[in-house]
Structure formats: structure tokens, C-alpha cells
């Protein structure tokens, strides 16, 4: 499987781009030199994953150095990987947890896991029914169970009504049957198109903007995403536009190092984040990098001035290249306020996808149900730990299966 589809896109775009006149803006030197100088040339078409990017100069932490991924994955593996173009890969068949991920990774481990697209996260979510009495005879209990997972009153009522309707229709009685119905109800209502990351534009670099309230895990997500992209041989530039919080730039710099991405940070304290983002994009254009991920400061959605700062970042970046993704990071512990967050960020920054983080805790992140339902913004990624590999693509059926357990 490798990053085949990935590289394909890249090559296509890269070749399309070589003809176009390059925009030369060698105005601003990046803050830090890239740690790794991966083999970038576009026409590398390697079948096996095993060719693995070797990251030069790893930092002292036990960062992943070499991926010991053994052999080329059989292409026929049930791959829920997002496919930007129709390929004859078999459709993801909801089979229980294809390969359980390692139990727990508290620190980045040198061990390489499954590729992101094939990683199962269902096993990382704790079941709704853990430690809860579920009486198949009393479906109203189900409402409480959903409420406990932050689905919210309206959504819980709606889901229970639907489960009841289906259960009556097929005459389901046993716990197993009812749970299966619940899985299918959840899957159906969580299903949304456009779930894959937008990596199909005609023009490089693609710009990803990470937004969200304080402390949801934006920077960590960037680290994970950048590492994954770098592994797929995309050249990544990270713009450290969180110039507000103390040591935020250093934090993202550490992740950039781990991921082998180039970092563009502010020249001075408190620099306008929009200008940092702009420089990051300009740098990427100069370097012919493929992807720019812009980290932004956490901001509460009711702070008008900070929100307009965000729309300014977007505006300024779009002077150079269009933004391909605006990813809103939502912490799974977030309650009903998550919906307000999504609304506010969608309004100022035109959010294109949600990243649900911290599902490895006891929280379930049920609020994403309402976010998808009400705003139609798909959840694209899911994060479950502090390790650099602890994330996966969101899949409705897997999420549903994980929740129902």
C-alpha cells in the first residue's frame, strides 16, 4: 500500500508544477534548518514501504529513527485509507479490529506501527458500555449512556428513537442484536463524504491551517501529521504562528525536529502570527516544499479579536496560495461547548475538517456527532496518545464499533 496513492498525487502535481514559473522570494531565512534532508525528488516511485525515510540526526529522545516495517503490505489488506482517486482496492469491510494497535504508547517508540491508513483506532476507544448496566429490555437507558458520551440531549434522543424503530422493525431483543443496531445507526449518521485530507490540488504547496481553543492538542497533532507526511516523502514546512503562548514556538520546533520538517518561526516575540504564516508559505514556495502546516495559537471562540486574527491569517496566506485544509482540533473531553467552537471557527476560518484528539482517555468525543450533523464538517483525523504515531484517519464504522465495544 505504502504511500502509493500519496506519491502518485505528488508526482502528478510535481510534474505539473515544474513548468510553472517559480515565485522567488528569498526574503526571509527560516529560523531553523531542517533536521532531515530526506530524499525528495519527485520521481521516486518505490513500491515497498520498507524503503522508509531515514531521518538524519535524530534528537536524543527515543524518536523513531528507522522504520523496521518488515515487508511490503499486501495491497489487498482491508485499507480504510482515503483514496483520492478511484482505485480497485477492496472497500473497507467492517471487520472487528483488523490488527489491534499496541496497547499503550506513552512515549515515542522506535517501533513502527501500521501505516496510518490501516491503523485501527477502535481498540483505543473505551466502550460506552464499560462499567454501565445495559438492560436490553429498557432502551431508555441507552439515552443516558449516550448522554454520558457527550452526544447531547437532542442527539441522544434522536439516536435512541432510531434504534427503537429499527429494533421493533427487525424484532431485535438480545443485547448483541441491539448493539449491532446501535453500531449501524451510529455509522450511518456519522458517515460523511470528503473525509480524506485534501491533497489533490493542482498547485503546491498545500497549506494546512490548524485551529482550535487552548490546550486541545494542536501542536501535537501537527507533529504527528508532519511526521506522517514526511514519511510519505512530502516535504513539509511548519509555520510556528503561535507567537502568543510562552514557548509555543519551541514546542512545535521539537515536534518539527522529530518529524523531520522544516520550521519557520517568528523573528521576534509577539510577532504578528499572520506574518509568520505568510513567511512560512513564502519559504515553502521558495524551497519548493509540498505542504505547509501552520500552527496557530489556541483561542477561545468567544474572543472576537483573536478570532479576527485568525481570519487575517487565512487571508494573508491566501495571497500566495489557497488554503487546502483548515483543521479544527477538538479535544474528546469537550462537552456541548464543542458545537459552539465548531460554529465559531467555521465562521471565521472556513473549517474543512475536524481532528478529534485524546480519545485514549475515558472521554468519547460524542460531540463530533452534533458537529457533523449540524455543520456538515467531517471528522478527518483522530488522535490517541502522545506518541508520534498515535493517530489515524477517522472512519465512521470504526468509531461506532469502538464506542459500542
Amino acid at each position: 500500500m505504502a504511500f502509493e496513492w500519496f506519491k502518485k498525487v505528488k508526482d502528478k502535481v510535481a510534474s505539473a508544477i515544474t513548468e510553472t514559473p517559480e515565485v522567488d522570494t528569498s526574503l526571509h531565512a527560516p529560523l531553523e534548518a531542517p533536521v532531515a534532508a530526506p530524499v525528495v525528488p519527485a520521481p521516486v516511485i518505490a513500491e515497498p514501504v520498507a524503503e522508509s525515510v531515514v531521518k538524519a540526526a535524530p534528537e536524543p529522545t527515543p524518536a523513531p529513527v528507522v522504520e523496521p516495517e518488515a515487508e511490503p503490505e499486501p495491497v489487498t489488506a482491508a485499507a480504510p485509507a482515503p483514496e483520492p482517486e478511484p482505485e480497485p482496492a477492496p472497500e473497507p469491510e467492517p471487520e472487528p479490529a483488523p490488527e489491534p494497535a499496541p496497547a499503550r504508547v506513552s512515549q515515542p517508540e522506535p517501533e513502527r506501527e501500521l501505516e496510518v491508513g490501516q491503523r485501527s483506532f477502535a481498540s483505543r476507544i473505551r466502550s460506552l458500555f464499560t462499567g454501565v448496566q445495559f438492560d436490553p429490555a429498557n432502551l431508555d437507558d441507552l439515552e443516558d449512556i449516550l448522554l454520558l458520551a457527550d452526544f447531547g440531549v437532542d442527539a441522544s434522543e434522536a439516536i435512541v428513537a432510531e434504534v427503537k424503530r429499527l429494533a421493533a422493525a427487525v424484532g431485535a431483543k438480545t443485547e448483541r442484536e441491539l448493539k449491532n443496531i446501535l453500531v449501524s445507526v451510529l455509522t450511518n449518521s456519522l458517515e460523511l463524504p470528503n473525509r480524506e485530507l485534501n491533497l489533490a490540488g493542482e498547485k503546491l504547496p498545500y497549506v494546512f491551517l490548524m485551529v482550535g481553543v487552548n490546550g486541545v492538542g494542536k501542536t501535537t497533532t501537527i507533529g504527528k501529521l508532519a511526521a506522517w507526511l514526511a514519511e510519505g516523502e512530502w516535504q513539509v514546512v511548519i509555520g510556528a504562528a503561535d507567537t502568543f503562548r510562552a514557548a509555543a514556538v519551541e514546542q512545535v520546533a521539537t515536534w518539527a525536529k522529530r518529524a523531520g520538517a522544516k520550521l519557520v518561526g517568528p523573528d521576534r516575540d509577539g510577532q504578528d502570527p499572520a506574518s509568520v504564516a505568510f513567511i512560512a508559505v513564502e519559504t515553502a514556495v521558495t524551497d519548493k516544499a509540498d505542504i505547509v502546516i501552520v500552527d496557530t495559537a489556541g483561542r477561545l471562540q468567544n474572543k472576537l479579536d483573536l478570532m479576527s486574527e485568525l481570519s487575517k491569517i487565512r487571508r494573508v496566506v491566501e495571497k500566495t496560495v489557497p488554503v487546502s485544509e483548515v483543521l479544527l482540533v477538538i479535544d474528546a473531553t469537550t462537552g456541548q461547548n464543542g458545537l459552539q467552537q465548531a460554529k465559531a471557527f467555521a465562521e471565521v476560518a472556513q473549517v474543512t475538517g475536524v481532528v478529534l484528539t485524546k480519545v485514549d482517555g475515558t472521554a468519547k468525543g460524542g460531540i463530533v456527532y452534533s458537529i457533523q450533523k449540524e455543520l456538515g464538517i467531517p471528522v478527518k483525523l483522530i488522535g490517541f496518545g502522545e506518541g508520534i504515531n498515535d493517530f489515524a484517519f477517522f472512519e465512521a464504522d470504526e468509531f461506532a464499533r469502538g464506542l459500542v465495544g
Partner: protein
Amino acid sequence: MFGNLSDRLAQTFKNLRTKGKLTPADIDTTLREIRRALLEADVALEVVKDFIAAVRERALSDEVNQALNPAQQVVQIVNEELVAILGGEQRRLEFAKNPPTVIMLAGLQGSGKTTLAGKLANWLKDQKQTPLLVAADLQRPNAVNQLQVLGERVGVPVFAPEPGNGIGDPVKVAKDAIEFAKKQQYTMVLVDTAGRLGIDEEMMQQARDIRDAVNPDEVLFVIDSMIGQDAVNVAKAFEDGVGITGVVLTKLDGDARGGAALSVASVTGKPIIFSSTGEGIDAFEPFYPDRMASRILDMGDVLSLIEQAQRAFDADEARSMAEKMAKNQFTLEDFMEQMQQLRKMGSMKAMLAMMPGAGQLREQIDNFDEREIDRTEAIIRSMTPSERRDPKILNGSRRLRIARGSGMTVTDVNSLVNRFEQAAKMMKTVQKGGMPTGMPGMPAGMGGLGMGGGKGKAKGKDKKKGSKSGNPARRAAEEAARLAGEKPGGSSEGNGSAFGL
């Protein structure tokens, strides 16, 4: 769509208060609404159930039926139960008999521990303590670094022998820090720890080890006010895992409905000691349970508002302003100065949201554009000093010049001048002891508002209990007056008024 829990309950009670007598069916309807409101405010399900049961029991008793106004009585009960769960009286930090007092911070990832450590250090420093910050979060990339920057910003030393990012033993760091603090005679030690999940046994063990190594006087559990139902699990896990002595609620300046406060206090039985309310290093205050309950019940958070005002307003400035007004010398210059002072209090919206009855004004508040102040300021800055002192000399050509200079239109200039005249007039009324009626236009309203802090004592004489006014500014001022004579906490008496019951 309702703005928040206050609004929800206000809506519910609006139906209640039209009734002279409550039937059990009335109570059930009301309780259902309250349940829904609480759940949408992220109060934990089990807490909601207990809460509803408690309120129902009391609502069905004679206590309500014999009351003059049963609806008001239900409101009263809800309020009392809320305060009871939130911990009744405000609790202060426990200090050790023999310094240093050790405070350990614990919580989930991203709950705001490190930022809070900085704020707490700053606050303690203001209390004439000598705090030492300890960087024992060696997990998250650059947490140590962040704490160092914060320490520098607030002028508090940071004990950080290890670089972090996965290197170093936090238990040893914490232990050494205590020794260091004793030697250097610091009076407070604040231990910042890594964020951890309640179910992460390994990390919880580490937290216990740190606790045992430093033997803290307080273990503060830091929790994000936006958290949902999981608040209960997390709080229990930390209570069982490390044993907490108090709670700190962060990001309370957001628009989250703050149900977590209820959940955590109820589940752990531990008081909420502090709340963190903004990006600034001083956006931090002791937590007042009765105020939170009032806020939930749409009584507004007048006390916090006044305190904030007092912090921002220079008493001398306020006095000279009052004198100027008395002599009818209030000018556009003063007007601008006042606006700038208001600015110091923070976001206009945040302030307005704290006012009682703000629920009904939600839309107005949402539509209020903070930049309006910038524009007003630009206009005034485009005037000559003599124009600012005496707006009467503003003729057509001057107005045109000002409009051009400030990038506004002549209409804007006109309306500012009009508003200023209104405000000046209003202030004259205020000076005479009364308050104008009706909700004044925004900047003018701010003028009136601005006086809240400085005028507390002046208003002391017309001390009324529980204003019936629908004007928040007016109630705020009167509440302030009431406060001058009373200690906070006597909230019960004013309850009905906020609903106009």
C-alpha cells in the same frame, strides 16, 4: 437558541412566575427543563439526577406551597442547591505552618496547568509571598521552557534542573526543589506536573510518587471548564489516584456553560478554589461559589465585575472625574480617557455578559462590535484639543475635517457628538443621585457603566434592597451600593429581583 444556562433557566422560570400556585405537573415540567438545561451545560448526568431529585423533594414540600410566591420559591431552592453543591463558602488556600507551603498541580493534558502555575505564582507574589516554580512536567515538549518564560514574565524563579522533553525524573526534580526552597527560604513552592490521563496507571503512579516526595499542603486539580460528561470520571480518577484538596477551573472566560464546576465539586466534594479567566497573566481570581450559582441563575456576576473595575480604575482618577462632572467640565477628552480605562477591564463583551439580566441582552451583546470603541477613539483623536474641550465649536467644516482625519463619515462624527452630549447629561443625573432609565446607546452606556467602580461610596446613601430595575447598569450600580454595606454572600435576599419576581 439559548445563550447559556442562565438563559435557559431564565426562560424556564419565566413560565413559572406567571403562576400563583404550583401543581405537581408544573414542577415536573420545570424540572424537565432544568434537567435539559443542566445537561446542555455539561453538568454530569449523575449530578443532574441527584440535583433534580433534591429540588423536586423540596419543591413538593410545604415550604413551597405556603410561600407567598411559589415560583420564586422554586428559584430560591434551585439557587440554594446550586450553592450547596458548589461548596457554599469560598475556601482559601491552606498555608503550611512551617514554610514553604507546597502546592502541586495535577490534571489532564491541555487543562492549563502550566499557564495556571504562572498565574498562581504571580498572584502569590502580589500576596507578598516568595514563590518558587518547579518544572516537573518533563513529558510534554518544551513544557519546562514554557514555565521558564512564564517565570521570567512574572518575576518568579523557576527550578528546572532537567531539560524535559522526556528526559529527567520528575520525582527527583520535585524532591530536590523542596530542599532547594528550604535552603533559599522560599515561602511557596508550586509544582507543575505533566498532564496525564486518569486511566494511565503508570502516570498516576508517577503523580503519587511526586506527591509523596514533596508532601504537598495542597494538591490542586486543574480542569478545563469546557469539559463535558467526562469531568466526573476524570475528577474521580484524580481524587482516587492522587488525592486532591482543591479544584481550579480554567478557561472560564470562554462561553462554555461551566457545568463542570458543578460536576467536579459534587463528585469529589472538594471546593473550587480558583478560576482562571483569560489570556493575561493576571486573569485569575479566587472562585466564589455563590457568585457562580448567581451566574448560573442569571443574577449576573456583579461582584466579579466590580472587583475587576476596582482593579482597573485608579481611585484618584475616578475622583477627579467625579469632580469634573460635578462642575460640569466633563469633556470629550475625559470621555476618551474613560473609555480607555474601561478597556483595561478587559473585553467589553465579557464584562457585559457578567451583568445581571444579561441573558435577555445576549443578542445585543453578541452584536456589539468592540471596534466601535476604536472608531470612537479615532474620531476624538482627530479633534483639536480645544474641540475636545468644547464640542460646541464643532461647525460643519470642522466636522468634515474630523471625519476625514479619522476615516469616518460626518454622520459618524455627528452621532458621536450627540452621544457624548447624552452621556454628559446622563452623568449629571447620576451625579445628583439618580440613575437614568432605559438602556442607553452603547458608548454612552459605557460612560454610565464606567462610574460603577469609583462611585460605590457615593451611592452608599440611597441604599435600596433588590432593585426592580430592568436596566442592568442600574442594577449593577445598586448592587455595588448594597455591597458597600454588606458582605458578599447575602445573595439570597436579592434573588427574586433578578427575575423581576
